[in-house]
């Protein structure tokens, strides 16, 4: 007959409940929950497994204790190992002698070097949905897991299941909102696409006329128009796809200075055509940073292009790109211009989809896509602007080094 929970265990459950209610960031919640669980249940190791939305595989979202890092990359199938059995059946399992249990997955110990003696595993269930499991291994002091431990673990699991379900619903809501935004303003995009099609159509017409008149200059202008508008159309479609899809950043080791330099070089011709100077400064502390370089490059391209658009020709315009490190754990990239500035009433709408201050030149997606990519990095973007004086956009990102991933 299980005895009631101790004061320490009740306090731990209260703390878990508070954490679940206080945070929307799933990783933060689950790390905290498993930290409390490992301590209060007095076990050598623990893990929290989640069902992957896309593949259905069981992924070790959190692992604590010895050999935790070796466990994290492992993927299990439903029904595989004790944890797979628990997720598949929806029932808890107490296994105090793993060597004599058919469900036990030996390969995990073989690859991690951990020696499992006993397992307690409970499913994460919300309604009909099984979203994963919590597994604790080897009670300290060599004792067996019992009904009391099961009671405690199930209480934690019910809270964790709520957190997982909340995060899933939040993601779904965001995705629905984004798709609705795109659906609702298709007419806005249609106008932008029509201008681009007009450019391609116009260029083609000019080529036709040039071939009839044998006019090489007209031919060159026509072909230039087709190529340019075709390129813009591709960018617009890419922005629409990026905005509508859920994505995780593709983290890799990158040089922020190289990204800044590449973006400024790409924009050099546009800057020259407008008589605007682009200046950038390298920062020696940002040459080895882990980030999604394609995503960040995209953001910088959008922001530098917007900065150039804001500068009027013949006004000694300049665009500056600088990066700075703060507190050792975050860094900023600032894109400043001395262009037209942004009206106060437009600042709040800047990151809304299909809002543009550039009339038909703007797709209204560039800043929305930029905002989304930065948010995926758990970063922030802010704007400081004065009409007639200029604008500074600041991207703030967590500073991740390679050592954070080893």
């Amino acid at each position, binding site marked *: 007959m299980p005895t009631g929970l101790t004061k320490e265990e009740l306090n731990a459950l209260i703390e878990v409940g508070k954490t679940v209610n206080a945070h929307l960031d799933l990783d933060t919640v689950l790390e905290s929950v498993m930290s409390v669980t490992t301590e209060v249940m007095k076990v050598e190791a623990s893990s929290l497994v989640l069902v992957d939305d896309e593949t259905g595989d069981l992924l070790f979202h959190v692992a604590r204790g010895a050999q935790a890092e070796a466990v994290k990359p492992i993927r299990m199938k439903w029904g595989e190992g004790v944890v797979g059995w628990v997720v598949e059946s929806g029932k808890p399992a107490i296994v105090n002698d793993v060597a004599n249990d058919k469900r036990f997955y030996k390969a995990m110990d073989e690859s991690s070097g951990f020696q499992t003696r006993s397992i307690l595993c409970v499913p994460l269930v919300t309604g009909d949905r099984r979203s994963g499991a919590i597994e604790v291994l080897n009670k300290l002091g060599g004792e067996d897991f019992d009904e009391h431990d099961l009671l405690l673990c199930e209480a934690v699991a019910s809270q964790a299941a709520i957190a997982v379900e909340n995060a899933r619903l939040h993601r779904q809501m965001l995705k629905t909102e984004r798709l609705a935004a795109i659906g609702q303003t298709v*007419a806005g995009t*249609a*106008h*932008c696409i*029509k*201008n681009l*099609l*007009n*450019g*391609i*159509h*116009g*260029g083609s*017409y*000019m080529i036709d*006329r040039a071939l009839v008149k044998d006019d090489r200059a*007209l031919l060159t*202008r026509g072909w230039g*128009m087709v190529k*340019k*508008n075709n390129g813009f159309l591709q960018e617009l479609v890419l922005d629409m796809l990026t905005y509508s899809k859920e994505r995780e950043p593709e983290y890799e080791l990158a040089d922020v200075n190289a990204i800044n330099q590449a973006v400024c070089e790409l924009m050099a011709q546009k800057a020259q055509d407008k008589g605007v100077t682009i200046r950038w400064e390298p920062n020696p502390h940002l040459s080895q940073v882990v980030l999604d370089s394609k995503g960040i490059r995209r953001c910088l391209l959008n922001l530098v292009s917007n900065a150039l658009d804001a500068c009027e020709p013949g006004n000694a315009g300049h665009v500056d790109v600088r990066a700075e490190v703060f507190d050792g754990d975050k860094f900023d990239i600032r894109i400043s211009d001395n262009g037209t500035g942004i009206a106060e009433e437009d600042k709040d709408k800047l990151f809304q989809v299909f809002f543009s*201050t*550039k*009339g*038909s*030149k703007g797709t209204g997606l560039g800043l929305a896509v930029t905002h989304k990519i930065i948010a995926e990095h758990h970063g922030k973007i802010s704007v400081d602007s004065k009409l007639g004086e200029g604008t500074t956009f600041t991207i703030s990102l967590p500073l991740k080094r390679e050592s954070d991933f080893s």
Partner: protein
Amino acid sequence: MADAKQILIVDDELDAVEFVTVVLEDVENVTTISANDGVSGLAKAKEAMPDLIILDVQMPGRGGFDVFADLKKDNATKGIPVIMLTGVGEKAGIHFSGKDMGQFIGAEPDAYIEKPVDPAELQKTVSGLLGL
């Protein structure tokens, strides 16, 4: 060309201006001038007094309908025929009815042409309005 007709093209898209200019090169006895935003378009219309204005609807700052309204309020320019270039229109299920336009502005453009521009349609419309 002593009796050449002058057409003012107002569009913030430089490619659109170039396209329309090339299309109108094949209409006899017309010359073109252009402006790239609503404010300078209105100023140029009052200064040059063209025979026809081709006016883009969606422009940053003063849009095409605002410029059209100002042209119609001014006795000097109200008689100049106007073709509106529009990026959304009947093909998208949106229709600018005479009643709507008359209600808001008190006059209706002489023609609407949807982008992407059909060169033959534009040439025919221009020739018709200019009596060519």
